[in-house]
């Protein structure tokens, strides 16, 4: 479709047809104080000069770092065909078409995405995608409220803080959001406090619509999902699992532990960890909740000639028909990124995905041993997959100094949870299949030197938590 801007005489004709004198009159309903007073943009620059300036900005990116940063966004190897196929212009939109059935190719790609994610999640229905994992999680919470006609949701404190902030934003309109604390110490430290969950569910004044827990959780730990789900269901609440998709190749999928809804960030499926996104919100549910799931759904059927055809289905839940009663009014999907995830999954296959998850876990075990040897042992004793927290005195300062040594030492947990004293001296680190033994050695050596120069804070071996707690068999796929 050619791009033809409106010329001044086009605008004059349109204004005359509307019987108004200026475009501004169209915005008369918006109070003066809320209107933009113009954008503060720099003057145009010659192309050469602009390119040089942008290259200068790009050069400030550090691409030399050995990175152990995860915390919700993960580095993975992406087969070359993923990016190459995304370059095709036919795919260049985040939107599903407004006259959808004419675009059979787009619908087929969404149908295949939904099918692949359904298999990964072991659930029946998958939406055509959402902005990101946090938005998908918030939609899952709203689904639980609609389905149960209850107005209170419990979210584990061990869910990513950004996700919890998004939930709070969505729940600002009168729904109640309570946090389930994490266990402070002992073998289950860092996981959702199941006894506290039981108390919150029993607290009678407002019945609970849904319980949200993550697998693995924000600290990388394996949660007792089956038990959390059982407690939720016994209180008449729905259970929402927040999952990392690559882990589902080796961990039990949400459908297997009784989750009614699953949400997650699809970025690890072939999408580069770009600063600020774009990301991919995964959302899946049981068939019983199909009318509550927001956004587009594509189904497969046969046309009048008996040939396979794809259709938008259950559109009646959506805002173009139901207006303010729609399942959601924030359901722009991420069609291009959903396509990337589909190509990634189809290319790498179930065995390949299991290798990616298993290699990441092996590299993380290697990282744990190397860091423990350098003086930083694990903060929590429980099992993890490929991400875990380590205790490092004055973690933020050490994190900064390690950057100077070419190591991105994960996330200083104090940056994510500044009010939690238990996390003041901790780094959250991860490894994936692209982490090399050389990078691990660089990290360990740099950390050892930092801790040595820092004085007497290296804990002796007696303080260290036992390594290598195995993932319980019930939590495995």
């Amino acid at each position, binding site marked *: 479709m050619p791009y033809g801007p409106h010329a001044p005489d086009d605008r004059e004709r349109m204004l005359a047809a509307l019987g108004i004198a200026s475009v501004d009159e169209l915005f008369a309903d918006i109070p003066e104080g809320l209107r933009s007073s113009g954008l503060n943009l720099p003057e145009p620059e010659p192309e050469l000069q602009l390119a040089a300036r942008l290259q200068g900005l790009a050069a400030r990116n550090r691409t030399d770092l050995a990175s152990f940063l995860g915390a919700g966004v993960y580095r993975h190897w992406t087969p070359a065909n993923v990016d190459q196929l995304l370059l095709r212009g036919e795919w260049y939109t985040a939107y599903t078409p407004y006259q959808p059935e004419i675009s059979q190719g787009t619908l087929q790609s969404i149908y295949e995405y939904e099918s692949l994610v359904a298999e990964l999640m072991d659930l029946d229905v998958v939406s055509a995608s959402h902005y990101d994992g946090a938005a998908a999680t918030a939609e899952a919470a709203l689904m639980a409220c609609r389905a149960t006609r209850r107005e209170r949701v419990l979210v584990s404190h061990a869910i990513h803080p950004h996700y919890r902030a998004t939930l709070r934003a969505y729940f600002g309109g009168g729904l109640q959001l309570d946090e389930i604390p994490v266990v402070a110490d002992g073998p289950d430290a860092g996981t959702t406090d199941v006894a506290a969950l039981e108390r919150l569910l029993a607290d009678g004044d407002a019945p609970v619509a849904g319980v949200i827990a993550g697998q693995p959780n924000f600290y990388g730990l394996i949660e007792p999902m089956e038990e959390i789900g059982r407690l939720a269901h016994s209180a008449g609440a729905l259970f929402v699992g927040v999952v990392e998709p690559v882990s589902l190749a080796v961990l039990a999928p949400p459908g297997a532990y009784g989750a009614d809804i699953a949400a997650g960030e699809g970025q690890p499926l072939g999408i580069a960890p770009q600063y600020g996104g774009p990301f991919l919100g995964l959302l899946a549910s049981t068939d019983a909740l199909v*009318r509550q799931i927001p956004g587009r759904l594509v189904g497969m059927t046969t046309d009048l000639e008996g040939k396979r055809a794809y259709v938008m289905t259950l559109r*009646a*839940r959506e805002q173009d*028909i*139901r207006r303010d*009663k729609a399942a959601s009014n924030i359901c722009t999907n991420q069609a291009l990124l959903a396509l990337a995830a589909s190509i990634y999954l189809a290319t790498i296959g179930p065995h390949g995905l299991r290798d990616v998850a298993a290699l990441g876990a092996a590299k993380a075990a290697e990282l744990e041993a190397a860091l423990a040897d350098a003086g930083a042992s694990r903060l929590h004793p429980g099992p993890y997959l490929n991400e875990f927290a380590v205790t490092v005195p004055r973690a933020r300062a050490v994190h900064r100094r390690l950057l100077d040594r070419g190591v991105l030492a994960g996330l200083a947990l104090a940056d994510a949870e500044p009010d939690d004293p238990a996390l003041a001296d901790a780094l959250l680190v991860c490894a994936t299949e692209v982490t090399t033994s050389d990078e691990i050695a660089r990290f360990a050596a740099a950390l050892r030197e930092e801790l040595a120069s820092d004085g007497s804070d290296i804990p002796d071996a007696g303080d260290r938590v036992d390594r290598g707690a195995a993932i319980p068999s019930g939590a495995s796929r």
Partner: protein
Amino acid sequence: MVPTDLRYTKDHEWVRVEGDEATVGITDYAAKQLGDIVFVELPDAGRTFEQHATFGVVESVKAVSDLFSPVSGEVTEANAALAGAPELVNSDPFGEGWMIRVKVAGPAEVEDLLDAAAYDALIAEG
């Protein structure tokens, strides 16, 4: 002519009141306007509604509409048959296509509703 033993709302629901129990559905006219009905979302027994409040949703291949309760009261039963056979609303709107039974809270409210002649006049206007 629509059945004369029923009362009607301007939103095309019908109600049959027998003692303190009322049966509610949508009219033949409404079902025809909606087209093939594919899903009816009904409330659980025990929920209460004010007169004219939304008690459910009817979904056809071309539209979704709210269902408005002709009377105030507590739902005693929803038509479970519609879950598997929503087309009953098209084929037998005044009979097997009924939607909910309600324990009527305010019998006088029925007097506010249209009788068959008034409803016929309403749909004749289009």
